[in-house]
């Protein structure tokens, strides 16, 4: 038993992951085994428990909004798979 193939494909679409047929089969089984295991949390009555928001119950952390020298366009683009005219180059998004 695994989670249905359509569910695996749906999640892969959300996660922007292309999966091979073998991966789809593998994940269906493995995810279902892990989800079966985490179902043990259902043993607990959590009706009176608030979900944790932060381990130290910290409140907002503010800092001065100071201007610092930026890294520079050339430095930032140095790692880009493709760059052109000071911009990151990507496949066309908007249809003409």
């Amino acid at each position, binding site marked *: 038993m695994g989670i249905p193939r359509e*569910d*695996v494909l*749906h*999640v*892969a679409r*959300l*996660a*922007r*992951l*292309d*999966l091979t047929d073998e*991966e789809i089969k*593998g*994940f269906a089984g*493995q*995810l279902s*085994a*892990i*989800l079966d*295991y*985490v179902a*043990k*949390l259902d*043993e*607990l009555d*959590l009706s009176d*428990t*608030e*979900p*944790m*928001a*932060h*381990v*130290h119950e*910290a409140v907002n*952390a503010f*800092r*001065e909004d100071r201007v610092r020298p930026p*890294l520079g366009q050339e*430095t*930032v683009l*140095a*790692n*880009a*798979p*493709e760059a052109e005219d000071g911009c*990151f180059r*990507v*496949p*066309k*998004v908007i249809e003409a």
Partner: protein
Amino acid sequence: MDLVGRTIRELRAFLDRGEVTSEDLVRAYLDRIEGWNPRINAYITVTAELALEMARAADRRIRSGQAGPLTGIPVGLKDLLITEGVRTTCGSRILEGFVPPYDGTVVARLRQAGAVFLGKLNMDEFAMGSSNETSAFGPVRNPWDPERVPGGSSGGSAAAVAAGLAAAALGSDTGGSIRQPAALCGVVGLKPTYGRVSRYGLVAFASSLDQIGPLTADVADAGWVLEAIAGHDPLDSTSIDRPVPALRDLQPEVRGLRVGVPREYFIEGLDPEVEAAVRRAVGVLEDLGAEVREVSLPHTGYAVATYYLIAPAEASSNLARYDGVKYGLRVAGEDLIDTYRKTRAAGFGPEVKRRIMLGTYALSAGYYDAYYLKAQKVRARVAEDFRRAFQQVDVIACPTTPTPAFRLGEKVDDPLQMYLNDIFTIPANLAGLPGINVPCGFTAQGLPMGFQLLAGPFEEEILLRAAYAYEQAAGIKRPKPALG
């Protein structure tokens, strides 16, 4: 004079007395790395030229009388700490060619302190793994037995310190990734309190759990490194603005210290040799005058399930940034979305994909309440268990791992068995608490064992003091693996 396999304090004394230079030290470490790294694969990148340059700068600083505690000390960095001008892969093909344009805060702090960087250490891909087998750069091997895993995800850091390929190393710990490999390799590994050390420039895995910390030859060294990297950083809004205690002059004093032993950590599946070693370690603390008592942490058995919802959920969000646009691998597709999908399919390994899938599933419409929200409620219960326990005791002593190092390949096809290896380390991450692995002997087969001490939030001084007292009294030898 044998220079490798020394503590930071020993090396400091040599350097300050002018008996060796940092350049001598670095050459000795680089020689050893050259000999042993092909066998154990602890380093992904060795920066020999850069290290020698940093060593010569450190020597000038030492001669001018400006040396700090770590000036001239050769260290290694887990390859998810970004380093200006030095490739940072995170153990992944997707970042194989990534050269960061700036230093993370801990890296900058070590650099200012004059520490010398030997290179970048191997790790499970994106820190997801407990055996170092998920690295895209090949598994690390345990220096005590190359057929066995070093643990993970900071397996390179632990193996390097154990084998004398670095005087100390930095790692990161999301569910045990410092403490578990430290236990399996026989070194000290310290996960500080959540918020104690800045994570600016740490490649994010699960942001509510990740914390950076040291792996060192002994407890006192861990105090030296933590003191150097800890403290508030305005660039990490989760770093806490609290003074860092003095950690370089620990007193081995535990008389009257209340040590709790949680009954839920001594369960089926705990290796009998490990259990005996942990109980002996607790006995040593008792002989030193600590008051040992049993405590209960009733939600311990739910921690792994809780973690494997929260950590993948946060990871699925954090790893959305690897899209082939601004940095890292790009595999061209028909359009932008297709490019994302192909890039991520080619760039991520199986474990990272599995966690992204699991996390995306747990956060997807209709499942959020049943999984993520429920996990955050159980997490609150786990933290509450500790809060109550620390009203009765000062530290908690327990196993770090259920077993000594297991064989390569043994658990790689069974994700759930692999995850259960972190059963004793995960609770401290869920509760944000500091924890340390302290070596406590060897199995009959010659594999290292460790035990774990945990303390309340920001109580690193008490934690280290207890660990130091144990280490001094137990007279644990630090034999080097034969690497034969």
